[in-house]
């Protein structure tokens, strides 16, 4: 799901937790910085970071589809329908208010920054690496199995739902037409999909038990990753910059 991840890029090659700390620190900084302009600068910096990681295309597409749409709707709703006194312009029954616009821009940039950080993180980290790193931090192996198995299952089930829909179409179920006709396809598609998946769980349970899934000893990994010395340096530098900005913000508040 993570798309193309090139390991030769220096930022991409970092240990998952290091990248995770950077993303979290970035998101917190974006929230605490005052004013719209500094938040916008933060978002610009995030774009530069994505560009440097070599995943700008995926990043831009996902940001546009998730936070972008939200941003536009947010600006429209808050500008026209929030309470405020300073009227910028008005037409027909609507009037745009400055307070609403400023609030929308501020909230919009906060959301864009938080969303962008997460999108950046998952675009440069495979879920497999991230879950493995979390497991080393103490996540139970059952939980990591659930996450990884879900990620594998989504594309499989999606493909199977298309097959089932084609099969139902072949026996005469209409999949195009009015809303009622289309809605009626939903049940004949989802029910066989769920049934066939649930039937498979018993075999899967046997397979897992045969490999000692429920054994309560520390498990070993066939695929493994380790943090490198550079990860420690990057984490410390990120931490220092983060503390500097937080302290600076508090000082600014007190003055």
């Amino acid at each position, binding site marked *: 799901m993570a798309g193309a991840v090139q390991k030769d890029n220096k930022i991409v090659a970092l240990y998952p937790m290091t990248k995770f700390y950077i993303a979290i620190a970035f998101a917190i900084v974006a929230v605490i910085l005052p004013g719209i302009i500094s938040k916008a600068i933060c978002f610009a910096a995030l774009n530069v970071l994505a560009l440097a990681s070599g995943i700008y295309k995926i990043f831009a597409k996902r940001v546009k589809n998730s936070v972008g749409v939200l941003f536009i*709707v*947010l600006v429209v709703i808050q500008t026209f329908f929030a309470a405020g006194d300073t009227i910028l312009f008005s037409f027909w029954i609507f009037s745009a208010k400055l307070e609403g616009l400023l609030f929308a821009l501020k909230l919009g940039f906060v959301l864009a920054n938080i969303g962008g950080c997460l999108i950046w993180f998952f675009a440069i980290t495979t*879920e497999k690496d991230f879950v493995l790193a979390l497991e080393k931090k103490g996540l139970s192996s*059952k939980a990591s199995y659930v996450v990884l198995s*879900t990620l594998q*299952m989504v594309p499989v089930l999606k493909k199977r739902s298309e097959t089932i829909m084609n099969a139902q179409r072949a026996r005469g179920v209409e999949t195009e037409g009015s*809303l009622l006709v289309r809605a009626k396809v939903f049940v004949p598609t989802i*029910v066989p999909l769920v049934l066939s998946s649930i039937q498979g*769980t018993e075999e899967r*349970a046997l397979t897992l038990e045969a490999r000692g899934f429920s054994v309560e000893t520390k498990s070993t990994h066939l695929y493994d990753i380790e943090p490198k010395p550079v990860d420690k340096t990057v984490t410390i530098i990120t931490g220092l910059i983060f503390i500097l900005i937080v302290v600076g913000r508090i000082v600014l508040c007190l003055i």
Partner: protein
Amino acid sequence: MATRNKGKETFSLMVILLIPIAIAINIVGGQLTSLLKIPVDLDMIGVILVGTLAGPIPAAVTGVLTNLINGIMDPTWLPYAFCSFFIGISSGLLSKHNMMNTIWKQVISGIVIALVATVTATPITVFFFGGSTGGGSSMIAAGLMATGVQIIQAVFSVYIVTECIGKLISVFVANVIIRVLPERTLVKYRFGEKFIKTSNK
């Protein structure tokens, strides 16, 4: 260890294997509704299914994980994990108190779950996203706001309608699935036995 496979503990292996399927059904169900252009959100069928079969805690885990995994591609899903958590808990508790057996009880359960969803989702939409849901429903909300309704009331009234329709259908679909599950599968889940008696009638 002896009771491990009887399916009575909260997280038996059968439940652990059911959760990924339920999450995948939530995600595929959501994609299917947009593929078929059905204007209702049917992305909680898996959560209701797990709640009905395996109880509140596994359903809550399913709900939260659904939102986290959807959040990988679209981070706007993440705050609603709170909402999915309560949908899972409520559907599990409803099943525990035999509220999923007959069609009238299912209607009541659907409305209860819809109310839970509305009450938890409205504050998130209003405070995190300033009233914007990003979907087609926010256009209806904007239309309501244009007539002078407050943002929170507009979002609430849009949600209560869409959620009631969506959750009622989801409860029915989940029950259709349970009805056709073989008994040998049903007995492996905590509340599965409740559905065996009715299918033997």
